[in-house]
């Protein structure tokens, strides 16, 4: 099966491109990036609940997100400023993971209409350096390993 979400991270560069086609009209794809209660829904997963602390969807606006685990403990916070916010077309913003060594990234979201019922998101992300980009790319790989370790630990704990 063809992969719907594509990542293009060229060798030695400090940027990457994420593209995805959606079976959604462009208005709904844009709304999913513009309304805090909807952002919270799709950014949450079984391990972490996303909360939008602040969101000003406009030029010179800013936002702050928080992610908590099942016990309500804050896993991470992120924030950024919004440089451009053009309805159904484009969002340009910065993104920074607080208390983390990955620096600030510049994100350009381009929303493209394909048909009345389908649309495409083109996300261009630029990092402070190639090394920082590679660290961010490695994070989910690292978390996967940590989760596997935690699961092993949980099982061992039940055997004690």
């Amino acid at each position, binding site marked *: 099966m063809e992969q719907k979400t594509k*990542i293009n*991270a060229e060798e030695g560069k400090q940027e990457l491109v994420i593209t995805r086609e959606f079976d*959604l*009209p462009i208005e*709904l794809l844009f709304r999913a990036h513009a309304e805090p209660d909807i952002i919270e829904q*799709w950014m949450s997963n079984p391990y972490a609940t996303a909360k939008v602390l602040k969101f000003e969807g406009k030029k010179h606006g800013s936002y702050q997100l928080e992610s908590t685990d099942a016990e309500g403990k804050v896993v991470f916070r992120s924030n950024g400023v919004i440089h451009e916010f053009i309805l159904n077309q484009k969002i340009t913003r910065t993104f920074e993971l607080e208390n983390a060594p990955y620096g600030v990234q510049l994100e350009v979201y381009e929303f493209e209409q394909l048909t009345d019922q389908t649309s495409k998101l083109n996300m261009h992300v630029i990092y402070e350096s190639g090394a920082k980009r*590679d660290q961010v790319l*490695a994070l*989910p790989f690292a978390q996967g*390993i940590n989760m596997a370790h935690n699961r092993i630990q949980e099982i061992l704990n039940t055997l004690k």
Partner: protein
Amino acid sequence: MNLRRDVFQAIADPTRRAILLLVASHTMTAGAIAANFDTARPTVSKHLQILTECELLEQKQNGREIYYHINAQKMKEVDAFIEPFRKMWDDRFNKLEAIMKGYQSKK
């Protein structure tokens, strides 16, 4: 170049993946790496040797110490390395699509 080992064999082992993650954040000596594991030091040395042979790690002599650092170029040849990142976004976007279909039918 030693072709005896390939990268897929190297990352198949969980200890070796854990070593790669440790070294990914900063350059380390063999001793500092071994201190993170309960495994015997010679076992860690063997893992370091395999990772070096397949060029995922590079060695640099500094005085009496050998420092290990990650060879990011080689790491990226391993699809398995980038796949969890892609999967994370794919999961998010699948969820976004499912949620917004609900909004669509509400119209």
